[in-house]
């Protein structure tokens, strides 16, 4: 079943390609990750720059920004997620078809950034949905977004179709719905989705 990696490379040099269904599947997935077309703040400008000719995200098969969650595979949370916007973002994520991935782009999306001590900005979108790749930066340069893309592609490449290590969307028991926070009297309710984001322990 498993083919020797060196033999495979050698055969590739001779013009013979061998593969497994899993590799073929992952190759198909990672080569056409279509992002959803939405931006929340200044990081979106860098995201747009990434798709333009100089950085050319099309090299990674991700140039097709879909204006509907039904056709998108990837949500790039590019910018500040205010508490007023968070329910909409989570609802859009819920409306995306499986398999779906999330890149949290920029300091605001991963932690609240410079607005952390404000009353109106969510301290990281990973409180409500599973984030695959975090990119720090304010805003991150297009190279950083491309790096995140490649990291995501590596992650997709490492997915198993069956067994314990399979990703969420291949697991019938894993949750497919994520709680959309409700705007409450003082804060969003709940303040975080404990199923997705058990409070991480800081190790010093």
């Amino acid at each position, binding site marked *: 079943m498993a083919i020797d990696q060196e033999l495979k490379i050698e055969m590739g040099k001779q013009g013979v390609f061998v593969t497994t269904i899993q590799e073929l599947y992952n190759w198909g997935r990672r080569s056409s990750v279509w992002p959803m077309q939405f931006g929340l703040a200044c990081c979106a400008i860098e995201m747009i720059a990434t798709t333009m000719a100089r950085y050319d995200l099309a090299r990674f098969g991700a140039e097709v920004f879909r204006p509907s969650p039904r056709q998108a595979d990837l949500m790039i949370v590019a910018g500040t997620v205010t508490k007023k916007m968070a329910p909409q973002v989570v609802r*859009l994520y819920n*409306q995306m078809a499986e398999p779906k991935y999330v890149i949290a782009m920029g300091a605001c999306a991963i932690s609240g950034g410079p607005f952390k001590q404000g009353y109106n900005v969510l301290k990281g979108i990973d409180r409500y949905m599973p984030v695959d790749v975090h990119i720090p930066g304010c805003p991150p340069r297009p190279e950083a977004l491309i790096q995140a893309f490649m990291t995501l592609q590596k992650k997709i490449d490492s997915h198993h179709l069956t067994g314990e290590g399979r990703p969420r969307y291949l697991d019938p028991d894993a949750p497919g*719905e994520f709680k959309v926070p409700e705007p409450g009297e003082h804060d969003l309710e709940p303040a975080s989705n404990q199923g997705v984001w058990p409070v991480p322990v800081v190790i010093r």
Partner: protein
Amino acid sequence: MSWSPYFSLTILFVVALGFGLAPLALAQLWAKTFSPAKPNAIKNAIYECGLESKGDAWVQFRSAYYLYAIIFLIFDVEAVFLLPFAVAFTGLTAGACVAMLIFALLLLEGLAWAWAKGVLTWE
């Protein structure tokens, strides 16, 4: 025994049908085996840019919009033909000019008719 001359076409038809259906069947089989369906209320809801949709999406528009659109189309097409006519005007014969005039008059007649019918008045 001689084959019907259409027999080869039948074979082609079957192959064409198989060519279309086989990937669909494969995709269906793949979905059955590997990707569990996970529908939920939020996912099945109407897509409204992340907001909860209010009311019905089926809204009736006034028919007058369509009449306006059709009249706009007339002049759109007219412009498409008039531009090359104007560019090549100096090299044209009198017959071509008359033909163009008739074309423009026909469109103008359509407009006059619509105007007389009261389509252009918005009430």
